[in-house]
């Protein structure tokens, strides 16, 4: 089947080349000299028109893309800073489209308009300081605006206020080949110290269970966060680089072995509300149509039909981390604060779990580590608390 496909493509390509050279050849009738392989007036004319057609192609393709794929982009941002990010994105995009439209037109139009003709004389125009100053200064001004807006937003996102922090929920995102875990710091808002050298049994994160701050820590594999509260994520990795990518929240930070990185945001839309978002409903419908179609094929081949898709926020890995990098995900649920509280209350602490698993032995950390090795979670952060 595939070899047949390849064969067909090769044949078609062959025919196309032959036809196209023919067309270009036909424009050559009459002329034959030493300079056969140098563009003559006819070549200039044909290719000049093609240049003009090409800018048309770029425009049509752009418009078609916007029409056909415009709805593929991520919808409503689900975090507070996400709105600013999207706003800046919209402004930058508008600017890009504007400049792209004009410069591509000028480039291809000139290529068409000034296509060579016998006897046409080019203008000797070597420089013009005024013109050059204009197109140096205009980008300077525009970029200055963009830089200022961008940096303002960046500082807003990356530098968190002290007060804001006090009200926040602290969660550790823990990455490993090929999955995620999350650890909630509990009421003391402090994560117990941890180090990969302490990993043992159910203590998969290497939490130092002797640390008082660790006593109320809870480890889960599905991430819940409350709407309207700042969530401070502390990222850790136990093996290679990973990246915690939460596209719906416009959030991403690498997870680096040997170091703690940080990102925080305030979720603004609960999962339930997002499922009622118009754009999301349309997206889900579209995806389910595709899945139904695919299922038919799979079932016909004796497989199991695909589950229908319901919307969920996702945490993806976005840094190449090994063979199954493409499938390293965790579901994120944004709850109302009350639901969140109830959900978290039900979860046992790691200390409890450890006790149960290792009863009757005392709940002390395995003796390997010296405290000095434990990572101090304030040491290196990728986001700064003012």
């Amino acid at each position: 089947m595939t070899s047949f496909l390849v064969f067909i493509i090769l044949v078609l390509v062959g025919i196309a080349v032959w036809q196209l050279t023919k067309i270009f050849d036909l424009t050559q009738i009459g002329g034959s000299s030493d300079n056969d392989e140098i563009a003559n007036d006819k070549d200039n004319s044909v290719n000049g028109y093609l240049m003009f057609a090409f800018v048309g192609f770029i425009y049509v393709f752009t418009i078609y893309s916007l029409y056909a794929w415009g709805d593929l982009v991520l919808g409503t941002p689900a975090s507070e800073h996400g709105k600013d990010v999207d706003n800046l994105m919209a402004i930058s995009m508008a600017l890009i489209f504007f400049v792209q439209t004009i410069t591509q037109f000028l480039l291809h139009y000139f290529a068409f308009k000034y296509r060579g003709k016998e006897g046409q004389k080019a203008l000797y125009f070597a420089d013009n300081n005024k013109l050059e100053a204009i197109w140096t200064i205009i980008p300077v001004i525009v970029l200055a605006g963009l830089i200022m807006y961008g940096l303002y937003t960046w500082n807003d996102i990356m530098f968190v206020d002290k007060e804001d922090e006090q009200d926040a929920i602290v969660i550790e995102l823990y990455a490993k080949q090929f999955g995620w875990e999350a650890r909630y710091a509990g009421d003391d808002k402090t994560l117990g110290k941890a180090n990969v050298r302490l990993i043992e049994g159910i203590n998969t994160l290497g939490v130092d269970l002797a640390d008082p701050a660790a006593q109320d820590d809870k480890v889960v594999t599905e991430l819940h966060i409350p709407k309207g509260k700042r969530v401070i994520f502390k990222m850790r990795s136990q093996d290679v680089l990973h990246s915690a990518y939460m596209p719906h929240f416009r959030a991403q930070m690498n997870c680096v072995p040997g170091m703690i990185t940080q990102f925080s945001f305030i979720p603004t839309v609960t999962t339930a509300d997002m499922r009622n978002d118009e754009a999301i409903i349309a997206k889900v419908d579209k995806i389910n149509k595709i899945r139904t179609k695919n299922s038919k094929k799979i079932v016909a081949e004796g497989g199991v039909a695909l589950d229908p898709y319901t919307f969920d926020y996702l945490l993806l890995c976005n840094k190449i981390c090994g063979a199954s990098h493409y499938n390293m995900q965790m579901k994120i649920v944004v709850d109302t604060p009350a639901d969140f509280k109830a959900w978290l209350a039900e979860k046992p602490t790691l200390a409890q779990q450890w006790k149960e698993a290792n009863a009757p032995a005392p709940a002390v950390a395995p003796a390997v580590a010296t405290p000095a090795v434990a990572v101090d979670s304030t040491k290196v952060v990728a986001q700064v608390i003012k």
Partner: protein
Amino acid sequence: MSHDHGHHKETFITKYIFSLDHKMIAKQYLISGLLMGIVGVVLSLFFRMQIAWPEESFEIFKVFLGDNFAPDGVMRNDIYLALVTIHGTIMVFFVLTAGLSGTFSNLLIPLQIGARDMASGFMNMLSFWMFFISCVIMIASLFVESGPASAGWTIYPPLSALPQAIPGSGLGMTLWLASMAIFIASSLMGSLNYVVTVINLRTKGMTMTRMPLTVWAFFVTAIIGIVSFPVLFSAALLLIFDRSFGTSFFLSDIFIQGEVLHYQGGSPVLFEHLFWFLGHPEVYIVLLPALGITSEIIATNSRKPIFGYRAMIASILAIAFLSTIVWGHHMFISGMNPFLGSVFTFTTLLIAIPSAVKAFNYITTLWKGNLQLNPAMLFSIGLVSTFITGGLTGIILGDSTLDINVHDTYFVVAHFHLVMGISALYGFFAGVYHWFPKMFGRMMNKNLGYVHFWVTAVCAYGVFFPMHFIGMAGLPRRYYTNSAFPLFDELADVNVLITIFAIVGAAFQIVFFWNFFYSIFYGKKATQNPWRSNTLEWTTPVEHIHGNWPGEIPEVHRWPYDYSKPGHDEDFVTQITPMKEGEEVLHH
């Protein structure tokens, strides 16, 4: 050195293999670069097929990847990453650094500045042969049992350091590092040669401000290479230490496959800094020569002076300088201090300014010209087009705020392919079409050239433009399949379309290769100055001779861009034409 040609006894070996002649070395680079290009493109087709038709069985995979890499014709997931890695490495370093720079710097620097050869012919030969060895090692790594390097062309540790993390980080990565170390040595020898040659061997009258922009671009590129490649070399060396001798430069606190490793105190972020200190300048090492080639070709074929010659030089210098202080834009979310992010956003967006100047100057050069739309000219105009399309999205990626959400998605893949991959490739093609007569004494067929250009132009947009959209949909790059996420089901059709464009576009490169190899032997005989160009290389005889000019090296009397100058009968005035009595210099 006296170069009365003819008194060298030449054997086949000294002429074609261990040649010291820069023109022959240029051809050697060209052919090796093109062959590596075929490998790189074919690899990309393989992994594009996997993305479009995930986990399907293909006969081709059975044949080319074999049972080990593609059991039953289905590509293994780590092999996907291996192919992406080797594709990226080959394209960036082997095709567009060595292939492009190596070919045209070697060919044009001596010819355009009026030198008999490179400053050191021996080092030049050594540089090529080391490059060749590094090619052989890189290709050999494709046949390693455990698979070639699979950590991405950026080879970030710990993934690249630990064979436990991915099979390709075993012998495959060792070969990658060995190959790149040799490659870097080769590149440094080449670059030093270029710089020394430009500084010392210019003919009488060839002042720096009379040099063609090609030579300026090659010269500055060589300097960037000398500044930044050693840093990659040191990163590679330290990585080799971490891998083989138990040091902890880049590794710390690692627990993998149920085992704690001894590494303590290193940082992968340090590697990222070292890598990108080369990595970013590298994109200009790739791009500047292409821009230089384009400047020359656009001026010649517009029959007009390049607009803003001095501004062009200034922007090359500005880009070169800025390119060494923007590397952090690859690391906004790496965990480095966000204050640094601000600094790198600032410097990165600054680089848009000289780039904009260049684009506008090209467009103005076309204005009121008498455009000779030869294939080389089409590719040059195409370069400006993709340079604009790809460059503009740099405004988004260079902005730390926006990068948070598009970092490492297909948006990035779209951006860098257009602005550096395709642009530089167009520059490469433009150069080949333009200087083919100089290299081989024959002409390439123009109609095949036109077909090649137009199909390539459409396919390049078809492949990379849609990637912006799937990137903005949040699709990460380097994913073996997107079927693990129902969210991405709606992107499947786009991915099929992209792959079809890629296959068609790649298939049409056969037209180029056919044209290239056929014309070497059977092309129409070239005249001495077929494009009616001003620069010195066209004053040498069509037949290659040692030392380039049979007699004295000609003296240069003017800049290279006196096209359609008022007061002259012809629409070009070669650099060796003395100024007429009372003739004025009309440019600044």
